[in-house]
Structures are given as C-alpha cells and as structure tokens.
C-alpha cells in the first residue's frame, strides 16, 4: 500500500470544501470513487478529480501535493492517521480534529485547529486569526491535543481554549489567549496588546514579551518554577528549531481579575 496522494492539477477557481478527505470518510473507497467526491462550494459542482490527480490507496497516510489559500476545512474531524499538505490552506484546517496528525507545510487561514480535542496539528508557516478558537456560539475553543505553529499567529490565538497546548514560535496578534478557560499557550515571539483578556484559568507564557496587558492583571513578581523546566524540555522538540523558552525564572501576572483571576501570564524578567 502506498499513501493516498492528491496532486494539485491547477489552482482552484473557487473555495474548496475538503472536509470529506479524511481517513474515516475515505475508507473503502477506490481511486475512482474518491475522484468523484464533491468538493466545490458553488453551483459549478466541482469534483475531487477536477482539481487533483489521485494516486495511492492508504487512507491512513494522506498527502496533498500543492496547496492554496482556497483549501478550506482540510482535516476537519480528522481522527486517525496522518495528513500532510505541501502548501498553504484556507480556513478551519483541523477543526474538530480528535486524533492523528495534520501537518501544513505552509500557512493557514483563520480558525485552524478550531475546537480540536486530540492529536497534533502542525503549521510550518503562519496561522491566521482565531487559532484553535471556537466558531460563533461555541462555548470552548481547543479542548485538548497540541497545536504547533512555527511562524506567527493572528488575533485571538487560543481564544476560549479549555485544555491542550498551543505553541507559537513567532509573534502573536492581539488578545492571545483571550477568555481562556484552561490549558497552555506559549508564544515565542512578542504578543500584541491584550493577551489573556478575560482569561479564567490557564497558563500563557509570552517568552518574547508583550505589549500592554489589561489593568486587571496583577503583578506577582518573579517566579522560579519547576514547571518551566519541564515545559521547556517537553516543548523543545520538533518542529521547533530552538527552544521557545529556557526554563529560567519569569515574571508572573495573575488574572484576569475581571473574571476569576485564576489564570497566569508569564513574561521575561526585567
């Protein structure tokens, strides 16, 4: 068996809904049946075969050769096996994932890893807004698993996350970790203003510093915590070329006291 491969024939002329191309949805289908699946989002009735050349048969090892910011909902509800995209994708990549791995060797649109509950989503480029966040009306964002972003993240990374880990190698946009319920968000670069706004519990480590946090965060002073060392060691793994932080003491801000005040933001000393 060889990995199921979707090779992009030409740039799509409309947004694509690729949520059907996961192991559980494709199991038992032959190449011809897969090529006949609908992926269009307009009246044109686009099929997989119109956009991709399909080869291979192992649905546990799916590969997209080529990408586009019009690749929406890739790996949605992905539960087992691996999906690799050699290019950019659009919105909602890995949304509601519950297992397996999804690797994007490019950048993503908004809502990547939205409400992901288990498994690992890795974005080698930049992530758009609302990384791991909930769609409108949902109570929680990330519920478990791990999201790695090598590049930057847009606004509201980790919005309403309640479990799991988000690691961002580069900078983060405004309101990183806003309304966090629990979990761990690490930003290697600088975080824009408003990090942790209205967070209830959870841990935000801003290793590259941050613009102003809200006035309802309380400075606890320097904290030399063993958990830094364990996290630094656990997070210093692929795909990050360098450790996001080194485990040394950091300044602790408790908050957001506008809500329960049980959360924490860590900033570099000084």
């Amino acid at each position: 068996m060889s990995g199921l491969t979707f090779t992009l024939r030409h740039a799509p002329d409309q947004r694509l809904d690729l949520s059907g191309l996961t192991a559980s949805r494709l199991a038992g289908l032959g190449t011809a049946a897969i090529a006949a699946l609908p992926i269009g989002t307009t009246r044109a009735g686009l099929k997989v075969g119109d956009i991709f050349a399909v080869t291979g048969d192992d649905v546990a090892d799916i590969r997209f050769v080529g990408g586009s910011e019009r690749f929406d909902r890739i790996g949605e509800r992905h539960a087992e096996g691996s999906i690799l995209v050699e290019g950019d994708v659009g919105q909602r990549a890995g949304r509601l994932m519950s297992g397996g791995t999804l690797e994007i060797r490019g950048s993503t649109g908004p809502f990547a890893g939205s409400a992901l509950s288990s498994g690992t989503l890795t974005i080698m480029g930049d992530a758009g807004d609302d990384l791991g966040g909930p769609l409108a009306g949902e109570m929680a964002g990330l519920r478990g698993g791990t999201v790695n972003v090598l590049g930057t993240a847009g606004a509201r990374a980790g919005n309403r996350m309640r479990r799991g880990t988000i690691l961002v190698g580069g900078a983060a946009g405004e309101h990183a970790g806003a309304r966090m319920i629990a979990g761990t968000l690490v930003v290697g670069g600088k975080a824009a203003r408003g990090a942790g706004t209205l967070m209830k519990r959870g841990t935000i480590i801003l290793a590259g510093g941050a613009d102003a946090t809200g006035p309802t965060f309380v400075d606890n002073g320097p904290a030399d915590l063993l958990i830094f060392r364990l996290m630094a060691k656990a997070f210093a793994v692929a795909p990050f070329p360098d450790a996001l932080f080194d485990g040394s003491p950091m300044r602790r801000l408790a908050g957001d006291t506008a809500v329960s005040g049980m959360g924490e933001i860590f900033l570099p000393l000084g």
Partner: protein
Amino acid sequence: MAALIRNGVTIDDTFAEAFPMSGAGIIVTAVNERWVMAAALSMTGFATSVIACGCEAGIDRMLSPEETPDGRPGVRILIFGMSPDGLEKQLVTRLGQCILTSPSSACYAGLEGETKINLGNGIRYFSDGWQISKKFGGRHFWRMPVMEGEFLCEAETGMTGKAVGGGNLLFLAANASHALRAAEAAVDAIHKVEGAIMPFPGGVVRSGSKIGGKYKGMMASTNDAFCPTLKGVTNSVLGPEIGSVLEIVIDGVTSEVVAEAMRVGLKAVVDLGAEEGALRVSAGNYGGQLGPHHYHLKDLAP
C-alpha cells in the same frame, strides 16, 4: 541438612519464602542532595515492615540531575503494601506529610506499572482551590501553591501487582561484629540492584521474627530458634560456633529482582569469607506453605 561450602562459608540447603505485594515507585527531587535525603528519609521512615507500619519503603537508588525530570538531584523510592488500596493510602499520606512539606522538593512518577495510583491527585485539595492542573507531553502534573513557592507533583504513578516482599538472607556469625560486617557487605551489594529495597534500618534487621507467639494477639514474635542466648533452652538451629545472627529482608518490583538481590548479597558475604564475616548463611521460611515465591540458596550460591 546437606550444605554447600563456599570460601569457608556454609550455605544452608534451605530457601527464603516470599509473598506477592503491590509495589509503587516515585522520584523525589530537591535543590541539592541534602534536601533530597531529608525528604526521602522522612518519607521512607517507619516503613520497615507491613506488620505494624502499613507498608515497606526504601530508597532504590540515587539519581543524577541528568536522570530526573527537572534536572536536579533526586532519588527513586519504592514502596510496597499488602493490597493496592492500602499501598495507595500509605503513599498519599506519606507524600502529603513528608514530601509536600520538605523544602524545594518535587515528586514524579517512578514506576511504569500496569495500573495507576494517585500521587498529586490525592493531595491536591491541600491547595484549597488554588491548585493548577497542567497536562502536556502525555503527563499530568499538579502545581500546588505553598509558602515556599510552588510544589510540583505528578498526578499519578504506576503500580505493579507483581512485586515480591520478604526475600531474605540470614547471616550466622561468631559474634555480633562479624555478623554486622557480613550484613553491611550484603547491603552494599544489594543497593546496586535496581528495583530492590531493604526496608529495615540500614537494610538490616537484628530481630527477625516468627509468626505468632505464646501471647494472645501477637502476630509475630522473636525468632527464638536463631537467638544465640536461647541456645539449649529452645529448639535452636544454632551450633556452638554461632554467637550472633543478622537478617536482610528484600522487597522487589519483580520476583527476578528479588532473586538477583539475594544472589549478589550472598556472593558479597561469600567473598568476605568466614574469618571476617558469616560462618553460615541461611534463609527464613514457613515450611513453604504460605508464600508462593521460594528462593533456594543452592540455586543462588556463587
């Protein structure tokens, strides 16, 4: 009784009889070895025998900073109980009173067992609502605010039902100093066996016991057959040349570990020789009727 003689030391044709136990392991770290030992000695104190202590515990080995999760010096502690529930209760109680309280300490899982039992899960409510749960890298930790700063404790550790308690060696010597020298040699050798502990003080017990006694309610009483001052007045197994007896009791995470510990202990005493140490080595059993694990000295002799 046919016996082997090695380097002048007589090895009785008998066996140690041991019992299945539940075993768990933890790793305790601290800022330096002084405070590692403070926590470890406190936690494993009064844990010599399940007869009255509720568990048997000891230090398996010291860990270098490279071997511990947080890069500080540490120690691996093994704790054994007669039942999983009793073991968990003892572990959590000792964790709360002896590790949590000890300056700079942290506690991690120290055994990959078939089942999990509580560590931090069992004491987190001490934090009165301020405890912080952290799950990453497949592990679960509790961060507990304390006056010193923060106590970090893994949520669970592994427990094995395949542990064995009660492996033992008896060193029969001309006098107490020779018996002690033999026991010390054996203790030093057995410390190098990973997964085995000797729960008695310094690894040695001088008051080995038999089951029951003449007084009502006594679960154990002195092993009069091995008491040198009772030669002639009781059914003694000591010859005229024996003036003192010491015992080592061994608990291990598997039966193989206990056998290995007894083997290296026996070798150390044989290497020491009869002039300096034990004249005779024996082992304690109950006729083979009680414990499923039998360790025959003739199979372990060097």
